């Protein structure tokens, strides 16, 4: 088990509950999809998993024991994130080389240009990209840069928040292929937050469905999407526009 959320609850100061009793385990090699709509609590859960918010109840277990402050540095090296909008996630004033090296600097891993070059190569960008600025790249290329930054420190887990929703369909296919090949080659597991069930089916082995802060259903993707047991899951699947 890489990461386990045990009975996580989160409430705002007003008392409104954003998450209630969420238990979710991420095993190595089994990509997990977190599916749900606006306001379901996906982002709150992601913030808790990233250590950016503290759960009101429950705890996170990392590599077999409760995640406590002394282990945070180790944890942060192992868990990286990719966000939805590659136009806001890259600092426009920095060159790509510096952006990609950021986790190495921040986590005290030592800035090694050969690791930056290897990360750029792994996401299919040319080596000279390191000397250029974000505005010189398209949306799909920017998302590759964000992925290069996430994998440069060889994390075990990638938390990806709607990583392909802002991309064109043909670009979406290429980025999903890239993520799948990174998982296969780098011993990387992905937790994907997405409302796109086609992408979920393509990339994730386990699917958890979140509605109003509660997990209403989770299990093998084939079972959850193929034979959903909860009415909300069924409604989600029925709403997906299909090709004639």
């Amino acid at each position: 088990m890489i990461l386990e959320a045990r009975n996580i609850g989160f409430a705002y100061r007003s008392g409104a509950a954003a998450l209630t009793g969420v238990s979710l385990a991420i095993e190595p090699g089994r990509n997990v999809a977190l599916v749900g709509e606006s306001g379901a609590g996906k982002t709150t859960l992601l913030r808790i998993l990233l250590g950016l918010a503290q759960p009101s109840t429950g705890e996170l277990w990392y590599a077999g024991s409760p995640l406590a402050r002394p282990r945070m540095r180790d944890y942060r090296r192992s868990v990286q994130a990719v966000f939805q909008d590659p136009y806001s996630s890259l600092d426009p004033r920095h060159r790509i080389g510096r952006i990609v090296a950021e986790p190495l600097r921040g986590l005290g891993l030592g800035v090694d240009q050969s690791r930056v070059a290897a990360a750029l190569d792994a996401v299919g960008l040319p080596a000279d990209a390191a000397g250029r600025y974000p505005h010189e790249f398209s949306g799909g290329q920017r998302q590759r840069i964000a992925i290069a930054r996430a994998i440069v420190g060889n994390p075990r887990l990638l938390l990806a928040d709607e990583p392909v929703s802002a991309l064109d369909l043909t670009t979406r296919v290429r980025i999903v292929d890239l993520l799948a090949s990174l998982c296969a080659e780098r011993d990387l597991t992905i937790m994907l937050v997405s409302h796109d069930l086609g992408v979920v089916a393509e990339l994730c082995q386990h699917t958890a469905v979140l509605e109003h802060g509660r997990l209403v259903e989770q299990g093998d993707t084939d079972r959850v999407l193929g034979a959903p047991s909860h009415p909300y899951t069924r409604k989600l699947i029925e709403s997906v526009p299909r090709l004639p």
Partner: protein
Amino acid sequence: MSLLTVDGLTVRNGTGTALVDDVSFSVAPGDRTGLIGESGSGKSLTALAVLGLLPPGLTASGSILLDGADMIRAPRGHGQVAAIVFQEPLTALDPLMTAGRQIAAPIRRFRGLRGAALRSAVAEALAEVHLTDADRIARSYPHQLSGGQRQRVAIAMAIACRPKLLIADEPTTALDVTVQAEILDLLDRIVTTRGTALLFITHDLPVAAKVVRDTHVMRHGRIVESGPILDLVSHPQHEYTRTLVDSARRFDAALKRTGRDS
């Protein structure tokens, strides 16, 4: 006779680059036409040119006839002929004005209604887009509404003056998938019951397939393929259309597989 005839439309930026390049198509009353393309294909600029709303710095050439009016040489108010719904309802609506007042504005201007008649026309418009609790919605500011409710308000504004042509530019891209399904149903019902022509702009082939009959595929400012959408999906001729269809099929097939395995 066509409601909209676009002939040889070319839109250039300040440096002379053609962003829309020699685009021709027409929309007859009651048609449902799609413009499908990815970022930078020129689909949204084409829609703005049709309404005479190109941003400053861009110049259009060729010809656009919208219900007899020349929208390039002598653009005139299009309010009663054509209306548009944009992708992001939060930026399309005025944050300082209640939904009711925003819907009332075009009705007052183009249908000349005032007072009680205006209020009942607003209520009617809200009912038409299936907003229950119309009183509360009319008194709400955009930030007090959900994404789906906002887009319904934007649609109510667009159809309040009974346009002959409704242009929808990625109207569901910013919405959750269940809300998207509802909004697509709503658009479908509105154009069916009123006989309004629909020009539907999207990058999403499966979404287009739900509402349009004929479509044009755009890439780099040009139309690369045109035809009934069912033919296009089953027998794409142009290489780019094939790539689009294959991409959509990938995710469609992945979803279908889950159904088969269990």
